[in-house]
Structure formats: C-alpha cells, structure tokens
C-alpha cells in the first residue's frame, strides 16, 4: 500500500482501521482512508470489492464491525466521552453527524409520491426547518442548475432515468452537505443518458467547495474529475494516486490487470 498524500488541512473524512463483514465475507478490512475538504476522490475496482460499502458505512446505511470513522473532526458511529473514550453513538448523534453527508444512489430512490420539486425541498423543510418559501426557491434554483427548470411539477414516473438522477442530485445538494457520495450513479442509466448526469457532476466538481467521493465504472470520467483515484480490491486499498499516475502508470499488478481488462472492453 502506498503512503497517503500529505494533507495540509484536517481531513473531512477519516476511516481508521474500519472493518465491515457480512457473515464470513469481509468487505472492508481494517481500512485506513482520508478525504481532504473539497477533495474529489474516485474509487474504482472490481465488482464486489467493497467500494460501495465504503460509501454505505459513511452514510450510516451499514454499521461497521470495528474501527472509527471521523467526519469533520467528529466520530460518526461513536460519541466521545469527556475523557476522550469512544462509546457507541445514539440516534441523535448519528443524525447530527450524518447531516454533513449527502448521497446519490445508483437507483435514484426518488420519492415517487412527490413532485420533482417537493423531492428537493421536503428535507430542507422537515429536517433543517427552513421556511417553505425559502426552501422552494432554493429547490427551484437547484433544479434549474441541473437543467430541469421545466420539470418542477413532474412526478418521478414522468421523468427519464437521467432526469430522475439529476433530481436526486439536486435533492442531495439541497441539504448542503460537506461531503457528497455518488454510488455508481450512472450504472442504471441507458447509455445515451449517462452524459447528462456526468455533465452535472463535472460542474459540481469544478465548483469545488464540497468533497466528493465517487464509486464509478466510468474510467474516462474518473480520470477527468478526480484529484485522486483509489483502486480498491478485496476490502483494501491496493493503490492510490493522482489519476494520471493510476491510469497511465499503475504500479500494482492487480491495478494493471483490472485497468487492462477495463480498457480492453
């Protein structure tokens, strides 16, 4: 395993020896992994290698078996007592720390009984307590930003896959997370719709402020948007570095083999 790149600032996300197993299957094996504020990290690797689980334990959708995850200086799954010891977190603490994180899912997971715009403003109103007019105005500007200015009142069933995913991105952005997770967000899309979604994410990456953690099979996209590419296999980071290095000059034989197989496709 390579040395982590030097980081001038405190990481926004830090995994410390995080282990996650489903029965006998270990999907994260004492994983150490940092993300700097505003850093864009793409995670690549074979299917079933545990890439998605990194995002899922960070979103608190799966509970790690061991290790500590830090988000913006606070432990996610633990609470710190006065003497610094870590004890399991309660739901209140989870909700507080989880508020820093947003996620876009492979299968969109829009709320089908709500219009596009309500999908976007619902959480700001009910979770953040924003006044409805303000939340609606912001939802409008977010939908405009993802190119759906004419789709406010459409229900998800009336939208294409690419449009649904763009609503889902706007929905996650409305919560103003410091870290945004993208879990194979184009894998469920028809090929002709992939571009419009990647275009939106590319713009977000250029804007900069938000850290982004992307699990993707789109190698060209990963190369283009990321500050760092992580090759992940069998529950561990095999190799990581700037995209040029990973894609043009991978050092580890497993990385070489995986990229060779992917690029030959």
């Amino acid at each position, binding site marked *: 395993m390579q040395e982590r790149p030097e980081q001038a600032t405190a990481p926004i996300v830090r995994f410390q020896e995080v282990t996650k197993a489903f029965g006998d299957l270990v999907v994260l094996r004492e994983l150490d992994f940092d993300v700097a504020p505003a850093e864009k990290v793409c995670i690549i690797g074979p299917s079933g290698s545990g890439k998605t689980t990194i995002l899922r334990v960070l*979103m*608190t*959708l799966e509970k790690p078996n061991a290790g500590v995850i830090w988000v913006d200086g606070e432990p996610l799954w633990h609470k710190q007592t006065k003497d610094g010891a870590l004890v399991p977190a309660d*739901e209140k603490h989870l*909700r507080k720390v*989880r*508020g820093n*994180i*947003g*996620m876009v*899912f492979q*299968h*969109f*997971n*829009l*709320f*089908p*009984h709500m219009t596009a715009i309500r999908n976007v403003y*619902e*959480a700001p109103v*009910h*979770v953040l307590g924003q006044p409805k007019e303000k939340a609606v105005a912001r939802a409008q500007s977010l939908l405009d930003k993802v190119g759906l200015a004419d789709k406010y009142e459409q229900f998800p069933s009336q939208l294409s896959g690419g449009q649904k995913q763009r609503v889902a991105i706007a*929905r*996650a952005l409305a*919560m103003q997370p410091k870290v945004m997770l993208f879990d194979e967000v184009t894998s469920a899309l028809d090929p002709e719709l992939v571009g419009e979604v990647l275009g939106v994410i590319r713009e977000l990456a250029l804007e900069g402020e938000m850290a982004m953690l992307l699990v993707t099979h789109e190698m060209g996209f990963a190369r283009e948007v990321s500050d760092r590419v992580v090759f992940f296999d069998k529950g561990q980071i095999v190799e990581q570095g700037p995209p040029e290095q990973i894609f043009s000059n991978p050092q580890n034989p497993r990385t070489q083999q995986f990229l060779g197989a992917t690029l030959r496709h």
Partner: protein
Amino acid sequence: MTELLEFFDFNYALEILPVLLEGLWVTVQVSVAGFALAAVLGLLMALARRSENSWLSEPVGALVEFVRSTPLLVQLFFLFYVLPRYGLRLPPFIVGTVALGLHYGTYASEVYRAGIDAIGRGQWEAARALNFSTGYTWTGIILPQAIPPMIPALGNYLIAMFKESAQLAAITVPELLFTGQVLGARNFRYLVPITMVGALYFAISYPSSLIVRQLEARYARAT
C-alpha cells in the same frame, strides 16, 4: 313463482321494512366503527411486529396469530359472557365493535405488513440519507406510498366484516339479523323477515364490491 308469491307476503314485507332498516342502520354503524378500530389496530399491530424490540414484536405476533386462528363467534362469547365475571361489563354494541375491530385488525395488520414490505429498501435509505426522523420517515415517506395500494384489500375486509357482523346477533346487538330473528320469532314467520335481511345485506355488499373492484383496477393501472 306463483307458489313463492303465495308464501311471500309483500304487505307483511313492507310492514316490517322500517324495523329492518333500523337494524341495518345498527349493522352499518357497528361495521364502520369496527372497521375504523381495525384499521388503527391493524397498523399498530403491523408496526409492533416489525419492532426490533422482541418484547413488543413477539407478544403482538402471538396475539395476532391467536386471534386469526379462533372463530369470531367464540371471541364474541368470550368478551360478552366471560369478561363480566371479572367485573368488565360492557354494552353489546361496544363488545361487538371491539371484537370486530380486534378480529379484523389482525387481518388488516397482514395487509399493512405486505404493503409496507412492498416499499423498497431504497426508500428507507434515501430517507436516512436525507436525515428524516424515524417518525417522519413513516408518516411522510413510507405510509403514503404503502397505503393507497392496500385500499382494495382493506375494502374487501370491510365488506366481509359488514356481512360477518351478523354474528353479533348472538350477543343481542340489535343489528339486522337480530332484528329479523326477533320479527320471525314474534309471529313464527321466518321466511319473509330472513329473506328481507338477506336482500338488505346484498343491497349494500354488492354495490360496495363493485366499487372495490374499480379501485383495484385503478391501482393496478397506477403501478
């Protein structure tokens, strides 16, 4: 036909109709009240059975299975004749409403359970990712999606309950069948009142089942 007409005294039928309609009104009231109770109890039972706390989920699960596996009539007798021995004496109408609500609540809980299970994991995960509270996840995200497709199944139970409420005659609730029986006993003429009772049940049940069928078609289209 003429033979039947000789047996069936239309004048008598008209004469007893107002009394039977009073009985029908009681039947409708007890059905609506029992169903409202069943709808609420069913939801609570379904939620309790899903609870991670096994001190809650297992007793409620056992209660549901027990109530589903014993006849309504036995439950009625138990509530009406046994509870007063332990100091709980309730009017027949209340006992009937509670028994119907509990009995059909267990059926409704299975409908709720299936409806809730039909909501994909992704909805729960999106709700969590957006940091909704557990309460709002239920009331704002899950139930609004789960309940509309259940309406036809719940409607069928409402109709079934409406007919089965005739069993409340056994504990002297003055509902439709009971009224017919009293009329029959008074004159030792059962044909006319009991035929009328059947016709009145049909007059409500059949149009209701047509409405439920329409709802079924509508939700089948929507999904």
